[in-house]
C-alpha cells in the first residue's frame, strides 16, 4: 500500500522527487544546455542470446531475460543493468520513429572485429539488438528482442532487484 503511494506518478513524493531532481541537476551541471536536457529512460523486457562458434560449429549457447534500461543522455545511450546489452553507445540515425545506436561510432560495419547495434522503434517500443565479435578463432554472435516502455526522466530499481543483487 505504502509502496503504491510512493511510486504513483502524481504522489506528493514523486512530484517532490522530480522537482528536487531538476533543481539539483540544473545546479550541478555547469553547461546550461545539458542542464535542460535530462536523461530519458526506456525500460525493456525480453530475451537475449549469445552463441559462440568455432569452425562453423556452435560450441556454447547462453540465453537470458534480464530487464534492460536504456538511458538516453546527450548523444549517448547507456545501459548497465542487463549484462547482455551492457555498454555505452553513440546515437546514430534518429527520427520520430526509430532510434539507432551503435558501439563506438556510426560508421561501424557488421564485418568489423566487434560490432554492436540496437534499433528502438519509438512508436511501438520494440527493441532489436545484435552483435558480432571475433575472439581468436571464436566467433561470437548475440541477439536480443525486447518490448520497451518509455519512463520519461525517471526510473526505480524495483524491476532489477539491483539493491539485492549488488550485495
Amino acid at each position, binding site marked *: 500500500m505504502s509502496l503504491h503511494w510512493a511510486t504513483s506518478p502524481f504522489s506528493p513524493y514523486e512530484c517532490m522527487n*522530480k522537482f*528536487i531532481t531538476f533543481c539539483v541537476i540544473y545546479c550541478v551541471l555547469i553547461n546550461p544546455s545539458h542542464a535542460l536536457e535530462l536523461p530519458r529512460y526506456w525500460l525493456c523486457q525480453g530475451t537475449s542470446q549469445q552463441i559462440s562458434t568455432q569452425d562453423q560449429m556452435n560450441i556454447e549457447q547462453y540465453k537470458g531475460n534480464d530487464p534492460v534500461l536504456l*538511458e538516453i543522455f*546527450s548523444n549517448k545511450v547507456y545501459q548497465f543493468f542487463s549484462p547482455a546489452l*551492457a555498454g555505452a553507445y553513440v546515437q546514430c540515425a534518429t527520427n520520430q520513429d526509430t532510434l539507432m545506436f551503435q558501439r563506438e561510432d556510426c560508421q561501424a560495419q557488421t564485418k568489423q572485429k566487434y560490432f554492436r547495434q540496437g534499433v528502438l522503434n519509438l512508436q511501438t517500443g520494440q527493441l532489436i539488438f545484435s552483435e558480432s565479435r571475433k*575472439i581468436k578463432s571464436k566467433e561470437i554472435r548475440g541477439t536480443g528482442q525486447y518490448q520497451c516502455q518509455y519512463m520519461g*526522466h525517471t526510473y526505480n530499481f524495483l524491476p532489477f532487484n*539491483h539493491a539485492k543483487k549488488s*550485495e
Partner: protein
Amino acid sequence: MQKNQNKSIILIPIVILEFSIILSWVWMMGDFSQIRFGVWPISEWLINYQGGFVRRGFIGEILYQLFPGQALIPKVYQLTFYLYLIYCMIFVCLYRLSKIRDLPLLILMLLIPGGIFHMAISSSFYTRKEILFLILFGLLCFIYLQIKQAQDSKKSTWITIFISLAIVGGVIITLCHEAFIFMSFPYIASLFWLLKKEYPQQKSIHYGFVAFATMIPIVFLLCTMMHGSVLISENIWDSLSLQDRLVISPHSPYTVYGAIGGIGWDKLQNLSTLYGVLVSGGWIIWICFGFVQYLVLGYVFARGASSQSQEDQLENLTLISVPFLLSLSIFLIGSDWGRWMASSGNHFLLLSFVLCSQNKRPIFLSKKIHAWPLSWINHPQLIRARWLFWGIIGYELIFKLPECCVQYPYFFIQYSLFAKLFGSI
C-alpha cells in the same frame, strides 16, 4: 549482583564479534558454487593491467599473476574474509589500547550500520576495497598509540614505521582504488598532522607528512589520467577465465560487465548514476540515514570522550570533524552513498579510539568547529540517558545501510535470510 551484571555484559561484545566472524567465515569459505556477494564488487577486485595500466588494477593484477588461468573468484571470497578478520582484530586491539572502558559503547560501535556486525549479516562493505583503507588507517592508529606509550628510546622506531606505512601503504592503496584520496586520506592526514604537532623536534615527521600529502595526490592524478576506456575494459574482461565470466555474467559471458565495464565509462555516464540516486527515490532515505548516522557518531564520540576536559573535547571534536566533513566530498562523485556512509563512519570510530585515549596534551588549534549535531559533548546528561542508548540500539538492529540503489525493503535487516543460512548447515 552488580559484579555479575558487569561480567555478563562483557560477553555481549564477544558474542557479537564471534557471531559476525563465524557468519562471514561460513558464507565466504564454504561452497563456492553459489555467488557469495554482488557481481559489481566481485568484478571490481578482478580489474587488472592486462589492457594496460589503469586505475583500480593493482590487486586484480596480483591475483592474475599469482593464479594464471585459474578461476579467481573463490580467491576473492577468501581474500575478503581474511581482510575482514584483520579489520576485526585491529578494531579490538584499538579498543583495548584506547582508554575507553565503556562496554555498552563498544556494543553500540560494533552494531553501527555499516560496521562490523552489519558487514557480516549483509556480506557487504568488507567485500569492497574500502576494507583496505580501513586496515591501513587502523594500523596507523595502532602505531600512533604505540608511539604515545613507547619508551623514548623506541619512539623513533615506531615513528619511522608510521611514516613508511602511511606513504607506501597510501600509494599502493591509491593504485587499488583512487577513492582513497576522498575517503581515507583526510583521516590519515589528520592523524599525521597531530603526530607532527606533538613531536615538533622530530623533523622526519615533518618531511614524511609533506611526502605523504604530495605523493597521494600525484598517484591519484596518475590514476585519473589513466581512468580507462572501453577497449581496456574489454581486454581486462577477455583476460578472465570463462568460469569467472560466467559467474559475473551467466547469460552473456563474452560481453564486458560490472565494475570492469565501469572502467570504460565516460564522465557523463558517471554523472547519470548520481542523477539516478535522485530520480529513483533514494534521496529521502539517504537523507534520513545520513542524519541518524551523523547523530549516532556524534553520540559515540561524546560518550567516549566524556572523561576529558571540555577544552580537550572541543579540540578533539575539531580534529575528527574536519576529516569527517572532507570525506563527505565523495558523495558528489559517486552514487554508492551507503558505502560512503559506512566507510566514513568506520574511519570515524577508529579515530575516536585514538582521540578518546588522549591524556592531557597541549592545545594546538586556536579555532574550533562546533559542528552540530556532532556536538553531543555539550549535553553530558543526555548522553547518559538510557532511553537514548536503547533508541540507538533499536535503530542499529532494525535498519541496514544498503551499499547503493536503495529500495524498499532492503534498508531493513533481513533476519530471516541468515537464519536460513544457519538452518542449512
